[in-house]
């Protein structure tokens, strides 16, 4: 991966220089990467452990939840009650440490046990059914929000107090403060219910089987537009404000001033000097923001009845589905971890100083 940091222009440098700098970069890059990987492995283990502990602090027992469901169908025999308690209550009868190790062991095999809410469907099947929906929705809207927010923030921060800043900054503070679900409700009402431009809910037209079929994909995109718009609308401001402030601060840095003194074009000064530096904190604080966006997108999914992890989480909590909850928490946390890892790598690419710090 080390080679990525070297632009082709390097080849024009003397051969000796090229050799040393390339291997140095590779070595430095490598050690940064190793450190990061180590951190993320520890974080993953901690998240897995937290995931193990938290649901066990939850009240209620799944057996009674299932029994209530059964009794709605008809009377339940006392024998059956015992059977259900044995089947569903059994998960917590072992000592905690043994549960923990079988839990960790299961994780390595991708085995999360059977879901209670969808008993006897395996949890992995349930999670898989929602994973792609959420990751695509969240991924695409986060990227859009990040890029758009950063660009707008850079434009606004370039001239603090300018007209763009005067309009955009207060507006984005306001939009940023809107509750996700409230914005979602308004969007549904206006664009789906009133104007009928978009479907009301769901992930795709329900009669289409998921797959690489243009009809399904286009339907999925149509269904994703409103939820994505909600996420973009409410999360864009975070990036925007951040970037605006960084930009407003960076445009006063000497190197930006010097770039202007150099008679470079305004675009070059803004992009290569100001924005290029101002974006770094946004990238490094990605972890804080992505957590918020994930939380918001869970609520958004619930409003839109979107078949992703948020809706599954809701179902898992309502049904006291421990195994499903665990798996969902783990998958959500791991996704966030992976996203952060990617951003970390990007940061190292963007900021040459971090490469030195590690050596």
């Amino acid at each position, binding site marked *: 991966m080390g080679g990525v940091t070297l632009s082709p222009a390097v080849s024009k440098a003397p051969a000796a220089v090229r050799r040393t700098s390339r291997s140095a970069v590779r070595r430095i890059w490598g050690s940064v990467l190793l450190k990061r990987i180590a951190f993320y492995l520890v974080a993953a283990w901690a998240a897995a452990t937290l995931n193990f502990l*938290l649901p066990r602090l939850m*009240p209620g027992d799944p057996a009674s939840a299932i029994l209530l469901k059964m009794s709605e169908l008809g009377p339940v025999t006392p024998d059956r009650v015992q059977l259900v308690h044995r089947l569903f209550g059994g998960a917590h009868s072992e000592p905690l440490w043994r549960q923990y190790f079988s839990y960790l062991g299961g994780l390595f095999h991708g085995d999360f046990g059977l879901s209670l809410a969808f008993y006897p469907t395996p949890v992995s099947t349930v999670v898989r059914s929602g994973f792609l929906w959420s990751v695509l929705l969240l991924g695409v809207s986060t990227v859009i929000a990040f890029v758009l927010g950063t660009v707008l923030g850079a434009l606004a921060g370039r001239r603090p107090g300018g007209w763009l800043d005067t309009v955009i900054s207060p507006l984005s503070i306001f939009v940023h*403060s809107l509750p996700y679900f409230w914005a979602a409700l308004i969007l549904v009402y206006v664009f789906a219910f009133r104007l009928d431009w978009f479907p009301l809910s769901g992930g795709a037209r329900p009669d289409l089987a998921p797959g690489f079929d243009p009809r399904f994909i286009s339907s999925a995109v149509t269904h994703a537009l409103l939820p994505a718009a909600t996420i973009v609308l409410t999360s864009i401001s975070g990036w925007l404000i951040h970037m605006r402030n960084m930009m407003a601060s960076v445009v*006063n840095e000497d190197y930006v001033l010097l770039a202007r003194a150099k008679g470079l074009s305004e675009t070059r000064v803004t992009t290569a000097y100001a924005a290029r530096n101002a974006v770094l904190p946004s990238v490094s604080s990605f972890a804080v923001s992505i*957590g918020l966006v994930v*939380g918001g997108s869970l609520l958004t999914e619930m409003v839109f009845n979107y078949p992703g992890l948020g809706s599954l989480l809701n179902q898992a909590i309502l049904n006291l589905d421990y195994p499903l909850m665990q798996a969902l928490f783990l998958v959500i*946390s791991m996704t966030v971890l992976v996203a952060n890892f990617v951003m970390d790598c990007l940061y190292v690419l963007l900021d040459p100083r971090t490469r030195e710090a590690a050596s």
Partner: protein
Amino acid sequence: MTRRHHVRFRVPANRKVRVGLAVFLLLVLVAAFGQLFVGHVLGQSANRLHAGGNLESPSGRHWLGTTSFGQDVFAQLVAGTRTSLLVGLIGGAIATALAVLLGVLSGYTTGRSGAALTAFVNIFLVIPGLPLLILVASYTRGRGGWLTVAVIIGLTSWAGGARAKRAQTLSLRNRDFVEAANYSGESRTRILLLEVIPHLAPVIASTFLFSVVGSIAAEAGLDFIGAGHASTVSWGTMLYWVQSQGALQSGAWWWFLPPGLCIALVGTAAGLINFGVDELADPRLRTRKPGSAAGRSRRSGGVTPEGAR
């Protein structure tokens, strides 16, 4: 010394800060005395069902109309202001305290324990907050009222603030005055309390502000999905009913809009204050008011020559 004097003098002069503070002041007044006014002057109560007709539009009797249960929306909004603000303040205070404690400690402590603390903060940072919050909130089963909710919010939402504190502390740790204190043999606790934390005051204030807003929003989210304390009147529970009663579809904008706008208003006010305070704290962000004569000279202290490699 002159700079400090200037900051104190200019706070109310910044328009953004002024507007933001005015909004907060208004909300605090509403939270404190609103219910008296609603009860004694308007003769309404937040909890009374069928105080008026169902889904009445705003009138002199019901300033913001009624819900589909005939409750007075204005009375609910006022009662909700108190709950939401209290949740915000308590949740925000807990989150900020934890953030300062863990952030400063992890930034200031060196060696293995420092690394462990940092890892701890970073791990909490990557664990998404809302699912965690939902889970823990379900644990309390809506018992204990809004206070429990506030405490849980505080306990689960400190990581972002802690990260900021850590970064600030790291940069302070190497500053002259802290090093001087170190050499003079002052105890670490003393240095932290008397040197580091006072210098973090502006950052702590802004963390608190956003923790308050975050707590209010989190409480609203919890209530909205029914995981909060549903029988307390708060902006969140109002939105829960708004959604479950299909207020929008019934055209009851007077019921749908106020709670959401209130939440947005608090966030906006906090954002404005923060914006303004940022400008005061960092002369480079200043747009309207003069800064020190030369912005750049301010930073000369932060530059330390690095050795050639």
